[in-house]
């Protein structure tokens, strides 16, 4: 027994789960968790959408998506600083930063597809999975490099986290002791708005139709007169732009950006996407919210140290009941 164990400290902490699980539930606390869960869940959902759309058209887990999210945050960071948002916040500036980063990431997404995935389009899908991982590493570790001198801006940002200037002043309300800030509200409604917009694009527009056609069989889609390359590029642009949006909405109230910020969030969003039924747009939204709330209430009412474990256990159980996720349909193939 090492002295460390001999001290036997780890034994009396953490407190037994029973005390926490059966501890009385306060309404305000419950509502507060609801608010928190929603504000994180919507972000998961936005990122999950990117995964799910790309998966739809390429059957590819775009591992780099979480890092596109990170790039989104940093483009926001650079834009905001360039425009001196920190000094004099204003909604107009915030909007410019927001749209600007979405565009930057849209372009990034298209480039990634063009150079890392398209050459492998007709190969086994695991092949492009590896390039995806490669791109992911490239972004993560590329951004960890020391800044290039004489560039004017600190790029690459390097490993130390940076402060994301607040785009506008925080206003907070406390209806029945539940803390809600204008950031939460804006973030929530923007996210929902974007999701509805996407829903419309996918199911109501020609682009959406061709997107779905490509997702079912890209070669035949070509025979129908659909420009497959453009559809796929468009899908990447959309997904990546959403990731940027998510990044800014998130960084707004959690103003820390660093090159690996996309890692954890990316995985969680991917899980959310699968949870809702990968390739399925509404599924991704519900999956994101579900995961956000699940995590929130697990760490709120059970044991936060078991959070990830319980979240995954919960996910696995759901998958065992619905093998293709909440919304994914899983019909036996016709033989």
């Amino acid at each position, binding site marked *: 027994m090492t002295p460390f164990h001999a001290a036997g400290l780890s034994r009396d902490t953490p407190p037994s789960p029973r005390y926490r699980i059966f501890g009385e539930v306060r309404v305000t606390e419950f509502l507060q968790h609801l608010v928190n869960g929603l504000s994180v869940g919507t972000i998961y959902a936005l990122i999950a959408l990117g995964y799910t759309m790309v998966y739809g058209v390429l059957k590819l887990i775009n591992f780099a998506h979480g890092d596109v999210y990170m790039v989104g945050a940093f483009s926001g960071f650079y834009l905001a600083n360039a425009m001196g948002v920190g000094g004099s916040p204003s909604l107009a500036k915030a909007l410019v930063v927001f749209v600007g980063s979405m565009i930057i990431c849209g372009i990034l997404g298209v480039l990634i597809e063009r150079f890392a995935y398209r050459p492998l389009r007709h190969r086994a899908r695991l092949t492009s999975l590896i390039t995806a991982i490669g791109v992911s590493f490239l972004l993560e570790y590329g951004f960890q490099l020391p800044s290039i001198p004489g560039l004017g801006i600190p790029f690459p940002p390097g490993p130390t986290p940076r402060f994301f200037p607040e785009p506008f002043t925080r206003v907070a309300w406390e209806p029945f002791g539940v803390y809600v800030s204008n950031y939460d509200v804006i973030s929530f409604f923007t996210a929902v708005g974007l999701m509805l917009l996407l829903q419309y694009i996918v199911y109501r527009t020609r682009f959406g*139709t*061709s997107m*779905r*056609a490509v997702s*079912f*069989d890209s*070669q*035949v*889609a*070509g*025979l*129908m*007169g*659909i*420009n*497959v*390359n453009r559809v796929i590029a468009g899908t990447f642009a959309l997904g990546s732009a959403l990731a940027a949006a998510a990044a800014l909405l998130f960084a707004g109230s959690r103003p820390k950006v660093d090159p690996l910020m996309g890692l954890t969030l990316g995985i969680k969003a991917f899980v959310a996407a699968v949870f809702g039924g990968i390739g399925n747009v509404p599924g991704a939204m519900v999956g994101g919210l579900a995961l956000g709330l699940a995590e929130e209430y697990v760490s709120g009412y059970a044991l936060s140290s078991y959070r990830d474990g319980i979240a995954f256990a919960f996910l696995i159980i759901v998958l065992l009941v619905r093998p293709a996720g909440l919304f994914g349909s899983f*019909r036996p*193939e*016709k033989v």
Partner: protein
Amino acid sequence: MLSVKDLVVHYGAIEALRGVSLEVPEGQVVALIGANGAGKTTTLRAVSRMLRPTSGSVRFRGEELTRLMPHDIVARGLAHAPEGRGIFLNLTVKENLDLGAFLRRDGDGIAADRERMFSLFPILRERMSQVAGTLSGGEQQMLSVARALMSRPKLLLLDEPSLGLAPQVVERIFQVLRDVSAQGVALLLVEQNAHKALQIAHRAYVLETGEVVMTGTGAELLASPEVRKAYLGE
């Protein structure tokens, strides 16, 4: 309207086409027959750019197709009902048909054509809102042909349209093909049912191991002893 010259296609090491040349005149029916693995499908795929030929040229109304993408080719009035039917298994019969008309904007025109297809293949009307993946083999084949027709093509490539169809339906398919060509649509038809194909073909080519070994009018080939022996099983 379509002229293929010295088309060569490789699958990795395998040379599937070794310089195929053929002509499809405006509004005519051209049949392409040959044993399994002769290269018929490959020819069609190369024409509609589902695969990139190694060399050779494909001209459609004077325009080189080998440089275009599949979707441009469709836009120029060339439809392809591929081997293995290539229908969207997760979409309903109706959605499949509508995708066939993807490039068309005339809403009621499309609706009218859809009706026409249903009258040609009543079973499809019955299955209209069923997911295509659950259709029987033959039903899928019908859907594939119907969908190709939805784009109102000037030239229609058909890869074994009668595959797996009941005799009655085979009859109907070939009747449909006659009508279609009567409306001035040219057909490039790959068929194992050589007899029927040659019957409606103005002109026919026989393919063996990636090369054209014989050509002539449908009647001539139908009469030729080699063809009767090799492809009509006599």
